[in-house]
């Protein structure tokens, strides 16, 4: 432990608690001193501090000790009184203000760092003015009447030799009423040690007169108490102080005064007082008496300050004893005295005095360096007592607290010291601010540092300073606080701190610094709307005040989502639209696979290129001069919820110029600009041209900004960053390369080591032809089935023709390239059936379908600065969202003839790609159902069900066609009867029946014209002469082929239908309203295979007249059996006679039993008898049945072979003769036979749907036999 006297507190105490010498002097003395620019006290003060006075001291005990350090304090009598509080405060305020000016941080100095602060020594961190301020604060408490150590120990009476009647002056001096109040009001013993000093100014002449006066004084006041001081040795007063010999006089004078007068006087007084105290207060008897006496006094005295103690009271004497002992460093005596009196004051409820004594006990213990706990306890006790007394003694509490803090600091209890600082804070905001700041430093310096509290107290302190208009202090504290909150996520606090610093700097007119702080809070997305508005408003206000345009590297408003940065550029790939560029590279690759000659073409070119390009640029991207590069930068304005900030965004680009590569090849300079080219020149700065994009962002809004660079000449283009301007005053700058976040380059060739900087670097090569293309009037939204004629326009704006065009469409079901002859034809008319036109293309389609690449005719090329139109067919096959990818491949001619590697460039292939997204709505739901006619060979009933699924559209039904040349379609009933208007309204359901007949090629003659076939049925009104559409030619046939492909496996025996409707309203799309839209619905593979492959019909007479009286009637019938399958089959026809009982019952179920069960819901041919006849025959039959059953004998029998077996070749027919014998007239159902068939297995399987065998019951065949007369 260090000597307490050497601690800061010890030093402070040794300086502050020392004997006071009251100075009384005449005006002439002051006048002489003022010649040196000093007052008398100022002149003497430097000589009052003795570091080695070495005086033996003996106080109460018999043991003498030596005093080495000693100090006396000199005050004019007029100053020995309690300072005016207001004046003191004003002085303290000045101290603080001055400190604020001195300590104000440099404008551009860095904000303090916590780690930096922690690594530095305490003395470097703590502002030096704290010590000074604390001392001044303590001094405002001087000369309180309850503390004796400020009471004058001696009185120095000074008279000038020029004064008339010097002796009387000495007496007058002490008798004036200038004396301190406590001398007169009895708080202090007026009998103080007096010392008389005569000052002689040497400039006034020789000192004879002074010597004479001195002699006179000595005789009057005693020989030892009088001194002569001669000052001002030189005549002109200009001599230096060092040379003044009289300074040593003063020194000796003061030392003599101290050692020979003051100290002995104090010793003597201590002994005297001690003796008195011992006699009255020490010993058990005295103590008891004292207690008894005080108890009696208790009731009488009830003032807040306790009783008034005069100097003669034993309490005051003990206090004086204690203070004198303290000043003479007899701490043992001091503490015993204080303890003695402490209880007295407590009993008397003289709280202020009690606190004062407690304070002194604490300090004495500290100086004794013992009972530390006790010392602290006393200080706390004193502090609390002062606090309880209220604001009147707030200053005392402050002083006590400061001493206590020093004590704690000495003992390294820094955290505790901080809490005391905090408790000192009272009503005086300014003082509180200083105390809080000191507290914060305590937390910083505590081990381990408590940074959170450090920050908190700094903020508190700053707020207090601000309230007292000490802006500079406030800024300083807040700047320190930033170090705590920076880098944390305590954003609410952090933003406020920065905001206030900014505001305060602005209030000082230091806008530049203010702006830097305000910038920190712009990205305060977590803040409430009001806060954000406040922040932004103040920020812009400050920026305006500066009158400057700031360029800020990391402006956080708006936030740039760097991960959304995308650079789209074109090398061998060019894009028709940004949408096309945003498609994954893989999609295009797969599409172009079989179109690009080979990969080697590309790599060859690159290889050669890389030989010419230094390694440095090897990984750079390549773009073509004159073609735009686009960067999409997405600013996000997610923080300012409503405020609108208008600004500009532009892309900043510079270039790198490498003479080595390009000097021999190209022009020397390269300039990269936005869309407009601006300047050429060797000066880099002048060649940098910026294009502005103007936009405004609502709060929380995110927009994508697209910027375009069009390099005009060859060179290297580097995209550096983006710059934007916020509200025309702040420029934000974002450097892409500085950001380590991996940038996505949309189309860049990904390499394992793909550095972001390489992504943003482009080698610009010479201009190459570039096709532009688009498809006008491509619908964005349409209904399923829509068939359109479109035109692809390819535009070559370069100076070179391109040739060898190829095109591939991702989804040929929807989009097809047409024949060039269709280019200018009138749509829908061109599809109409034409007579005498050879059907062609049907077979060519198959080829096309295989490879999907459309080769433009060899002779087609796009000449320079011309365009090419090419017909396309569009068919909305199915509802849904459709994306079409189209790539067009082309080759250049005669390009780069000036280049060395011309031949290679020839093989450089540019593709051209288009993409469209179309939304196809569901329109008509068409389904077909086929049922065979039971009694007819190869005839089917066709039911078509159409549902209009649109919400509002009305379709005009037009045509139903069967595809292929094998089927006849005919209406079963006129459309008028089902759908008189021919319009199918929204939600309407239409069912329509057709007869479908197989048109067997083998059965028709070779020269039969297929046009005679009725493969198309017009569904329009009968009188309508509108032409039918030809489903067998392009494009309907093409699309139908694709539909077949998509709708399932192709197998034999299936029928495909095309149902065509028209929509007269042009409201789906802006397409020509006067033309009907054409819709074709393709239904493929309506299956026939589920039916029995064997069909037959029985032919024969229906009605016979016969005379049964002569003979039974024999009837010959012919059964024609058809094998419609591709396999040979064996058929077994069995006839069996009806059983005797119910054989002839004409039963509906029996008549239908011949059909497979699953087809019962189908369509059956009713026998060709009219209704009335049926009824009569029914009636007749019943009767006959009855009679037959009575007779119980069959009415007819099968004659001839009852079982016939035959083999049928594939797709062949055979006839089987049948014969019956009828015995009686009547109506007979000849259905009692059965066909068993077996298909011979074929090598290749035809699918599971085909049955290999089956049995069919005979169809009803009614024979009417009449009795002939």
């Amino acid at each position, binding site marked *: 432990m260090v000597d307490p006297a050497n601690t800061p507190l010890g030093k402070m105490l040794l300086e502050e608690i020392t004997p006071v010498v009251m100075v009384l002097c005449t005006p002439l003395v002051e006048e002489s001193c003022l010649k040196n620019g000093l007052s008398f006290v100022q002149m003497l003060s430097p000589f009052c501090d003795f570091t080695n006075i070495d005086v033996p001291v003996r106080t109460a005990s018999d043991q003498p000790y030596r005093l080495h350090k000693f100090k006396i304090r000199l005050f004019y009598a007029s100053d020995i009184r309690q300072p005016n509080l207001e004046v003191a405060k004003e002085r303290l305020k000045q101290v603080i203000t001055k400190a604020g000016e001195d300590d104000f941080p440099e404008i551009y100095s860095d904000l303090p760092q916590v780690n930096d602060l922690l690594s530095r020594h305490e003395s470097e961190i703590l502002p030096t003015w704290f010590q000074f301020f604390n001392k001044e604060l303590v001094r405002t408490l001087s000369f309180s009447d309850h503390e004796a150590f400020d009471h004058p120990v001696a009185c120095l009476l000074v008279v000038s030799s020029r004064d008339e009647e010097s002796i009387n002056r000495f007496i007058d001096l002490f008798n004036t009423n200038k004396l301190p109040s406590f001398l007169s009001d009895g708080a202090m013993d007026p009998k103080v040690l007096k010392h008389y000093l005569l000052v002689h100014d040497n400039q006034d002449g020789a000192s004879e007169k002074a010597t004479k006066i001195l002699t006179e004084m000595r005789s009057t006041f005693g020989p030892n108490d009088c001194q002569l001081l001669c000052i001002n040795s030189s005549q002109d007063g200009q001599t230096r102080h060092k040379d003044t010999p009289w300074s040593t006089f003063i020194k000796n004078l003061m030392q003599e005064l101290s050692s020979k007068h003051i100290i002995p006087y104090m010793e003597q007084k201590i002994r005297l007082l001690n003796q008195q105290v011992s006699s009255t207060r020490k010993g058990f008897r005295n103590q008891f008496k004292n207690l008894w006496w005080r108890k009696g006094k208790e009731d009488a005295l009830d003032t807040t300050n306790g009783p008034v103690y005069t100097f003669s009271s034993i309490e005051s004497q003990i206090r004086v004893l204690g203070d004198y002992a303290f000043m003479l460093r007899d701490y043992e005596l001091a503490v015993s005295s204080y303890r003695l009196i402490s209880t007295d004051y407590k009993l008397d409820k003289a709280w202020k005095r009690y606190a004062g004594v407690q304070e002194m006990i604490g300090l004495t213990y500290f100086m004794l360096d013992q009972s530390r706990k006790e010392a602290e306890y006393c200080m706390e006790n004193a502090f609390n007592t002062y606090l309880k007394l209220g604001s009147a003694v707030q200053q005392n509490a402050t002083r006590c607290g400061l001493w206590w803090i020093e004590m704690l600091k000495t003992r390294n209890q820094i955290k505790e010291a901080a809490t005391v600082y905090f408790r000192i804070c009272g009503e005086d905001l300014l003082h509180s601010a200083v105390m809080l700041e000191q507290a914060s430093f305590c*937390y910083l310096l505590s081990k*381990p540092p*408590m*940074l*959170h*509290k450090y*920050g*908190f107290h700094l*903020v508190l302190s700053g707020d207090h300073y601000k309230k007292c208009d000490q802006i500079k202090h406030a800024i300083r504290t807040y700047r320190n606080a930033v170090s705590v909150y920076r880098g*944390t*996520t*305590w954003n*609410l*606090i952090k933003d*406020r701190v920065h905001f206030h610093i900014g505001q305060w700097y602005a209030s000082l007119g230091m806008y530049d610094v203010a702006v830097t702080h305000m910038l920190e809070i712009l990205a305060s997305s977590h803040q409430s709307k009001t806060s954000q508005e406040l922040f932004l408003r103040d920020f812009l206000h400050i920026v305006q005040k500066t009158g400057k345009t700031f360029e800020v590297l990391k402006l956080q408003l708006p936030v740039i989502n760097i991960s959304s940065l995308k650079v789209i550029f074109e090398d061998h790939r060019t894009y028709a639209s940004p949408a096309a560029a945003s498609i994954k590279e893989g999609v295009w690759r797969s599409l172009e696979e079989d179109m690009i000659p080979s990969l080697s073409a590309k790599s060859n070119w690159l290889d050669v290129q890389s030989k010419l390009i230094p390694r440095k640029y090897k990984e750079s991207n390549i773009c073509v001069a004159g073609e735009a590069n686009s960067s999409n930068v997405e600013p996000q304005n997610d923080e300012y919820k409503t405020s609108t900030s208008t600004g500009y965004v532009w892309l900043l680009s510079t270039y790198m110029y490498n003479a080595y590569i390009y000097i021999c090849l190209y022009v020397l300079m390269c300039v990269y600009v936005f869309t407009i080219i601006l300047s050429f020149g060797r000066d880099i700065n002048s060649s940098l041209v910026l294009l502005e994009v103007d936009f405004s962002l609502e709060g929380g809004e995110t927009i994508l900004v697209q910027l375009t660079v069009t390099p005009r000449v060859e060179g290297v283009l580097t995209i550096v960053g983006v710059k934007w301007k916020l509200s025309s005053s702040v420029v934000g700058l974002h450097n892409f390369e500085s950001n380590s976040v991996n940038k996505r380059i949309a189309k860049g060739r990904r390499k394992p080591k793909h550095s972001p900087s390489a992504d943003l670097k482009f080698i610009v090569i010479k201009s190459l032809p570039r096709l532009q293309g688009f498809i006008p009037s491509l619908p964005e939204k349409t209904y399923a089935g829509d068939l359109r004629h479109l035109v692809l326009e390819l535009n070559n704006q370069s100076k070179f023709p391109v040739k060898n065009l190829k095109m591939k469409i991702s989804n040929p079901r929807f989009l097809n390239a047409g024949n060039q002859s269709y280019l200018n034809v009138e749509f829908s008319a061109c599809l109409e059936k034409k007579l005498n036109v050879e059907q062609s293309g049907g077979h060519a389609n198959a080829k096309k379908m295989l490879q999907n690449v459309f080769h433009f005719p060899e002779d087609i090329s796009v000449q320079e600065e011309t365009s090419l139109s090419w017909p396309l067919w569009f068919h909305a096959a199915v509802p849904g969202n459709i994306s079409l990818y189209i790539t067009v491949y082309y080759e250049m001619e005669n390009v780069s003839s000036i280049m060395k590697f011309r031949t290679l460039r020839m093989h450089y292939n540019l593709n051209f790609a288009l993409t469209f997204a179309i939304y196809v709505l569901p329109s008509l739901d068409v389904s077909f159902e086929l049922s065979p006619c039971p009694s007819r060979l190869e005839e089917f009933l066709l039911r078509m069900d159409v549902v209009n699924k649109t919400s509002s559209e009305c379709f005009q039904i037009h045509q139903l066609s069967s595809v292929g040349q094998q089927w006849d379609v005919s209406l079963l009933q006129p459309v008028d009867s089902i759908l008189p208007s021919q319009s199918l309204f929204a939600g309407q359901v239409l069912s329509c029946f057709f007869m479908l007949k197989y048109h067997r090629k083998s059965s028709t003659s070779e020269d039969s014209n297929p046009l005679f076939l009725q493969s198309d049925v017009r569904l329009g009104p009968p009188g309508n002469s509108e032409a039918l559409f030809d489903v067998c030619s392009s494009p309907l046939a093409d699309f139908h082929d694709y539909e077949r492909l998509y709708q399932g496996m192709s197998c034999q025996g299936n029928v495909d239908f095309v149902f065509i409707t028209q929509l007269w309203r042009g409201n789906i799309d802006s397409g020509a309203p006067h033309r009907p839209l054409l819709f074709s619905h393709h239904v493929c593979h309506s299956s026939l295979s589920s039916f029995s492959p064997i069909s037959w019909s029985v032919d024969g007479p229906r009605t016979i007249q016969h005379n049964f009286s002569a003979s039974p009637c024999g009837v010959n019938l012919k059964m024609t059996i058809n094998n419609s399958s591709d396999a040979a089959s064996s058929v077994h026809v069995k006839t069996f006679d009806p059983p005797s009982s119910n054989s002839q019952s004409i039963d509906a179920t029996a008549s239908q039993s011949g059909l497979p069960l699953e087809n019962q819901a189908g369509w059956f041919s009713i026998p060709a008898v009219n209704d009335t006849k049926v009824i009569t025959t029914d009636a007749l039959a019943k009767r006959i049945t009855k009679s037959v059953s009575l007779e119980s004998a069959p009415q007819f029998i099968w004659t001839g072979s009852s079982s016939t077996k035959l083999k049928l070749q594939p797709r062949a027919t055979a006839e089987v003769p049948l014969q019956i014998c009828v015995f009686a007239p009547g109506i007979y159902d000849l259905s009692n036979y059965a066909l068993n068939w077996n298909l011979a297995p074929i090598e290749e399987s035809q699918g599971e749907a085909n049955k290999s065998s089956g049995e069919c019951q005979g169809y009803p065949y009614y024979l009417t036999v009449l009795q002939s007369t």
Partner: protein
Amino acid sequence: MIVCVAVVGHQNNPLYIQSFTDADDALKLHHIVHCSLDVVDERVNNPKKSGPTLNETFLGLLYPTENYKVYGYLTNTKVKFILVTTDLDVRDADVRNVSIIVPCIELYYKSMNL
């Protein structure tokens, strides 16, 4: 009355701060919670000083300010729960037993899907 509940991550980063007062004192409560982290650190680093609550996750009264009392709870993952109340005469045991903090912690775990 509980005026503020805060969850602070192990890096002393605020995860959640909710104040339950009508007054606009969010900043103040942020400061109080932020400040109390020093005390938490202190207790964690000097478990001896915390006396009877040794090895317990409940940190008890962290520090009393003029108007508030601040209580703390520390999870094993060094996530801190800070509770600021205006009840100046509340006892530690009450805070612990009345289960003010425990439901908070349960909710926190739920939100973490633990």
